[in-house]
């Protein structure tokens, strides 16, 4: 009982334990904040990767595979498959505003892609964005002439009626733009795309309603270049923002059937090679990928296995043997996500090593406390306290400081993690300092999330560290000779 009384009194009366608890607090908070931000970063990356791939993907090389329509019909009947959509991947030179850059072109069926990956959510521009942008750039209304006002109001009305997301979902521009199919490039594809200091894109710099010309290189079924390049013009009907800069800066979505036609991969009537007359059979169009969305709660590895089995049987029946891989979204992005996961682990270990400083600090502070309390230790031994009893006072003291420090660290970390973007805004307002610059990093906000398991493990480790830090001074306190302790000046 005397141990509890003394631990309680020592905790309340001394400045030294406050510093020890502060060391634990700061180290706990530091590790939790690092792991939460890195975890949030990883989670956003994973979310973006999943949005781009669906749950499971069937993938061939750029020459693609045929009969995808009956394959998808069959896939949809599998018990754990909710939706599937075809995809044709190729590469092209994109010409926009007289600038040419290489891009990855994906031929899609927008409704199918929406069902598998939530395509609509990645579409960036809505009529409201356009209106907000227009209004932000307008001079005050009272400075406008009547004619300017009329033009402005007409523009607002016209934009208000425009539904850029619907255009993108059909990959078809409004008829008054012209008779071309629609395309949706990534938001960072257009040459004028740049972010402001808050990480936002301006509609003024976007490519919506402008023309994009793709120069495509069709391949033979053997993978050789087939003659001359093909050119295809599109109107940009919207732009997408997936959350992964590399994708948003290099990808363009176009209608599947248009891309198939340009790459000579569309369905067509078979002709006799000798007579060049139609044989009456139809040769199926080709795609390079099929994306699959699993039913909620399904085990993705099990889904992948059942899809793989189905696809193999499907191809065997048709005597088709293209090189096809079936992967989950984690496997598809394994290298990229693995690198971020490793970085998270590495940072956690590094900050964990830094936290050893806290253990050393606690050891030093406790040693000072033991020195200060030497005579009290002598008195307690004279009153009958055992060596183990004295030791346990200081170990218990370390435990108490660990618990208090870890709890305060947890509170500090939670309040920082939950308000990290507001804190950053305040720091910027007061000191002009920006730790997360959205014009450099791709996410507008600092990502973060508190994981209960990670937080619990860190808090327990903090308490254990505190006890470890107090162990040597506690041992020395227990070993003190009572007579020498009583004589200590």
């Amino acid at each position, binding site marked *: 009982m005397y141990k509890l009384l003394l631990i309680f009194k020592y905790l309340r009366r001394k400045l030294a334990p406050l510093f020890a608890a502060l060391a634990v607090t700061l180290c706990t908070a530091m590790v939790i904040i690092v792991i939460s931000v890195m975890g949030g970063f990883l989670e956003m990356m994973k979310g973006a990767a999943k949005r781009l791939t669906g749950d499971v993907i069937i993938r061939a090389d750029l020459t693609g595979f045929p009969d995808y329509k009956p394959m998808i019909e069959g896939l949809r009947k599998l018990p754990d498959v909710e939706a599937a959509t075809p995809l044709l991947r190729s590469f092209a030179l994109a010409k926009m505003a007289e600038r040419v850059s290489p891009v990855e072109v994906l031929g899609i069926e927008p409704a199918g892609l929406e069902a598998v990956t939530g395509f609509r959510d990645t579409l960036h521009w809505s009529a409201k964005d356009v209106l907000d942008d227009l209004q932000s750039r307008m001079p005050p209304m009272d400075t406008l002439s009547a004619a300017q006002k009329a033009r402005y109001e007409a523009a607002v009305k016209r934009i208000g009626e425009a539904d850029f997301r619907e255009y993108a979902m059909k990959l078809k521009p409004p008829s008054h733009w012209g008779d071309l199919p629609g395309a949706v490039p990534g938001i960072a594809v257009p040459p004028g795309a740049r972010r402001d200091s808050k990480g936002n894109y301006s509609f003024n710099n976007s490519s919506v309603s402008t023309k994009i010309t793709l120069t495509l290189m069709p391949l033979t079924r053997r993978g050789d270049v087939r003659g001359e390049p093909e050119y295809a013009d599109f109107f940009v009907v919207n732009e997408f923002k997936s959350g992964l800069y590399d994708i948003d800066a290099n990808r363009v979505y176009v209608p599947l059937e248009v891309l198939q036609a340009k790459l000579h991969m569309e369905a067509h009537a078979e002709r006799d090679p000798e007579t060049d007359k139609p044989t009456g059979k139809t040769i199926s169009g080709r795609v390079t990928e099929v994306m699959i969305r699993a039913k909620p709660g399904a085990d993705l590895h099990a889904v992948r296995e059942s899809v793989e089995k189905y696809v193999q049987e499907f191809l065997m029946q048709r005597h088709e043997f293209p090189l096809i891989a079936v992967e989950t979204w984690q496997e598809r992005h394994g290298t990229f996500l693995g690198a971020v996961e490793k970085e998270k682990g590495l940072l956690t270990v590094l900050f964990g090593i830094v936290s050893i400083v806290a253990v050393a600090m606690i050891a030093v502070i406790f040693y000072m406390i033991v020195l200060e309390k030497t005579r009290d230790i002598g008195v307690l031994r004279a009153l*009958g306290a055992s060596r183990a009893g004295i030791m346990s006072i200081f170990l218990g003291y370390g435990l108490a400081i660990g618990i208090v420090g870890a709890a305060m660290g947890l509170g500090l970390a939670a309040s920082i993690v939950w308000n990290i973007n507001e804190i950053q805004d305040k720091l910027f307002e007061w000191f002009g300092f920006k730790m997360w610059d959205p014009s450099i990093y791709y996410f507008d906000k600092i990502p973060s999330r508190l994981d209960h398991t990670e937080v619990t493990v860190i808090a327990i480790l903090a308490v254990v560290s505190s006890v470890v830090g107090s162990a040597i001074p506690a041992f020395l306190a227990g070993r003190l000779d009572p007579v020498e302790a009583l004589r200590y000046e």
Partner: protein
Amino acid sequence: MTDSPTPSNAKPQLAARGVHKTYRMGDADLHVLRGVDMSVRAGEWLAVLGASGSGKSTLLHLLGGLDRPEKGDVEFEGQPVFGKPWGELERYRSLRVGFVFQFYHLLPELSALENVLISAMVPSGVFGWGKVKKDARERATALLQRLGLGERFKHRPTRLSGGERQRVAIARALINRPAVLLADEPTGNPDAETGRQIIDVFRELHRGGQTIVMVTHDRTVAAAADRRLVLEAGRVKE
């Protein structure tokens, strides 16, 4: 009253039998006690006199089980104090003897009452404390009131005078009803008037049958005791 190393007419309550104690001081050995024989009877008040460095405090530490002799033994009620199973020495220090130090040695974080109660907490353990808490609290309160500290229960040592602190230290030493009170220069620090008050407290305790071994260098203080024992250069002066 006799001035002899061992009383002859009764069985001793606490005794030292030929104890030797040496301290290492740098490269040299300091032979502090050189075969001391002494004893104290139950209810007796023994004053141990001697000049500074004569080994008085060391003898008191050996009698209280705080230190071990290299040779010889200490006996309490005929039984050796050292060489007993683990925990017995701590029980001896906690329950059989009570220490009063020259510089009080109160724990600064605790109030006067807590300083007294902690002595009762040490032998009881976490679970045993619940059973004895009420009794210990009543006894501590009674002791402090008896020693004139009825209004000072909640005061911490820094807010008490030297005499008050020493009375709290005496209450702490007595809370477990020890057989022997071991006092190391109990009047050495307070002023003369306070010193007299402390001796009055000891006198009253002695009248109540308390065995006391008191180390002092002051012959006037020693005069209050039943018997005096003089140490000189680590030996009992014949």
